[in-house]
């Protein structure tokens, strides 16, 4: 699709001159043989031009079905767009025109008539269509003609109309489409423009504009990281004073949500943003759940998702984010805390051992990764996530057992799993203690409330309300693994110890199964750890069974593996193996 702009009066004049040319050609002749060739050339040229009369007629009559399919020419009055000095021009989009939309001309149109176009939804929609029709070459010409500074100004202007229109519940879909298509045009043009001045201009965008641009443009990773990072920083510094940084009422996302959404589409860019930010900004951004809602947690978890992130990339994020958030723990709400558990769970060896993970060195600086793991697990959801991560760790790192110093690697695995299981147990204990504190607060200080409830003038109502509160608290403590209330903290801790013993047995079972997988033994089958009755002495009982199994012809190397792992687990759980070691 191309565009067509014309001055109707001038075009009518051209049409008349074509008639005159045809008439002139009809009466121009000569008998002189010397004139024959020249006249033939002239007549051919005149005939070809006169043949354009039909197409000009099509334009002049705005014929939708004519050979020149002109779309609603008179609905977009762009008098001074293509020829600013001449009033009365008409412009339309010419679907049949060859060569597509000319980027430079469209840039000229946008620069001169942008506001007028946006005021009319039909014009705005047509402009969006024209922008979408730009192929990469035309988009580059468009972007170059527009220039980065003017493009940034236009983006901010159309974004403000979109934001305000949305806030006022005006139908701003067409304007929003212009914003998105403008962004997409810049994205298509990106490989052909000089990046530095564009990045400088786009880094100054309003955060809302930057969010919409990043979401629609499909910028390459480095550019997305620069623009989104600048938008987030600007929002943090000036969010409360930005018109477009305020909540609206029609479901439009907040600027940082838009930006994080865009970065979720390119985790590599998200990791670059996180790596480049100061700690205080990270905590202020991710801790701002009032604005971010539930966006920050999934964003962080995706940045370190082992399906997308290498050990080095995950370490780059976790070694920055966890210490930063720990330093401002008050900003971390329960939901985000749970997501921290999900983020850390696949990389527990990086926290528990703190050294080299999968060949990548994790540098924690002055932070204590084990203490960070303990803190991460201080939510029921996060503690469960850490426990699940610990259960998966043996299988996930089993390949390292096959190639490394077997006993040392198994010991390290044991340390990592033991540390994680202790953190998970401690996390549950911490949560249970919080619940206990609530119980005691209710039952001690305002304990007379219950007396009031049954003896006061509105006893039934108050009693019902109090009963509902008690039921709610009971639910809280049950979820923390504690039945009944109030619960003595030592009972909770005993439960945690039992949890650890069970976990150790569970991991021993994994070791045995992984060890024997694919290598059937001729001797008796190994004892199944999970068949043991649970209890604090289960580990000792299982060790005895393993000894009997070896004596009866079982493999000593399996027993050695279980012991190496068990030693590590015990040291990790007891906090005795705090010196970072590594699993390659």
């Amino acid at each position, binding site marked *: 699709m191309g*565009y067509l702009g014309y001055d109707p009066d001038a075009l009518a004049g051209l049409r008349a001159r*074509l008639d*005159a*040319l045809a008439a002139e050609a009809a009466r121009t002749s000569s008998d*002189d043989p010397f004139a024959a060739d020249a006249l033939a050339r*002239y007549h051919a040229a*005149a005939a*070809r031009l006169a043949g354009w009369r039909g197409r000009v007629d099509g334009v002049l009559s705005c014929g939708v079905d004519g050979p020149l399919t002109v779309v609603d020419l008179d609905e977009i009055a762009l008098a001074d767009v*293509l020829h600013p000095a001449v009033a009365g021009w008409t412009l339309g989009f010419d679907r049949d025109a060859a060569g597509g939309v*000319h980027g430079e001309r469209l840039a000229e149109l946008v620069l001169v008539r942008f506001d007028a176009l946006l005021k009319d939804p039909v014009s705005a929609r047509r402009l969006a269509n024209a922008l979408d029709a730009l192929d990469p070459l035309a988009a580059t010409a468009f972007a170059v003609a527009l220039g980065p500074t003017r493009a940034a100004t236009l983006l901010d202007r159309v974004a403000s109309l979109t934001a305000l229109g949305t806030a006022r519940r005006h139908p701003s879909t067409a304007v929003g489409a212009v914003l998105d298509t403008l962004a997409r045009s810049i994205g298509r043009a990106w490989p052909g423009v000089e990046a530095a001045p564009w990045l400088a201009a786009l880094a100054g965008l309003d955060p809302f504009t930057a969010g919409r641009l990043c979401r629609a443009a499909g910028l390459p990773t480095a550019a997305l990281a620069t623009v989104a990072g600048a938008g987030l920083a600007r929002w943090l510094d000036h969010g409360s004073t930005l018109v477009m940084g305020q909540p609206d009422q029609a479901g439009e996302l907040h600027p940082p949500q838009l930006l994080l959404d865009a970065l979720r589409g390119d985790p590599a860019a998200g990791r670059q943003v996180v790596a480049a930010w100061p700690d205080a900004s990270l905590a202020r951004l991710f801790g701002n759940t009032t604005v971010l809602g539930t966006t920050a947690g999934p964003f962080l978890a995706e940045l370190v998702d082992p399906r997308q992130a290498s050990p080095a990339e995950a370490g780059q994020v976790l070694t920055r984010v966890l210490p930063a958030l720990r330093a401002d723990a008050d900003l971390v709400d329960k939901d985000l805390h749970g997501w921290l558990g999900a983020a850390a769970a696949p990389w527990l060896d990086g926290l528990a051992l703190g050294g080299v993970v999968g060949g990548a060195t994790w540098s924690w600086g002055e932070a204590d990764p084990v203490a960070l793991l303990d803190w991460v697990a201080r939510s029921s959801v996060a503690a469960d996530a850490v426990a699940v991560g610990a259960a998966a760790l043996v299988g996930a790192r089993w390949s390292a057992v096959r190639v490394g110093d077997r006993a040392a690697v198994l010991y390290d695995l044991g340390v990592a799993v033991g540390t994680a299981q202790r953190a998970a147990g401690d996390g549950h204990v911490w949560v249970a203690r919080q619940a206990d504190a609530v119980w005691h607060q209710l039952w001690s200080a305002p304990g007379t409330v219950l007396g009031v409830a049954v003896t006061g003038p509105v006893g039934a109502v108050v009693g019902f309300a109090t009963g509902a509160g008690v039921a709610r608290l009971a639910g809280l403590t049950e979820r923390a693994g504690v039945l009944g209330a109030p619960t003595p903290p030592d009972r909770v801790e005993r439960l945690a110890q039992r949890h650890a013993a069970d976990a150790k047995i569970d991991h021993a079972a994994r070791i045995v199964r992984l060890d024997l997988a694919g290598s059937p033994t001729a001797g008796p089958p190994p004892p199944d750890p999970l068949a043991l009755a649970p209890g604090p002495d289960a580990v000792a009982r299982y060790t005895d069974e393993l000894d009997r199994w070896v004596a009866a012809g079982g493999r000593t190397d399996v027993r050695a593996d279980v012991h190496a792992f068990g030693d590590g687990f015990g040291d990790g759980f007891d906090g005795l193996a705090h010196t970072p070691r590594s699993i390659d």
Partner: protein
Amino acid sequence: VTDDDPCTLRARADGLRRLAAALDASCLRDVRARGGDATWRGPTPEAFQDECALAARQLDAAVDELWQGARLLDRRADDVVTGNGP
């Protein structure tokens, strides 16, 4: 009237010069001038303008050819008068 008659040859040359002048002032040039960016813009008008440019080159060639023809006829008339002709 024969091809060797100097008057006839000069009359033909005059005719070619008049025709050349007429073509040089053809509406075709006006069409080209009026079909430019001041009247319409876009891929379709550009195709028209390309057509106009080609037509103008053909017109220029036709005019040049007519002037050359006129000069040839004049030379032949001169040769007949001076007896240098064939």
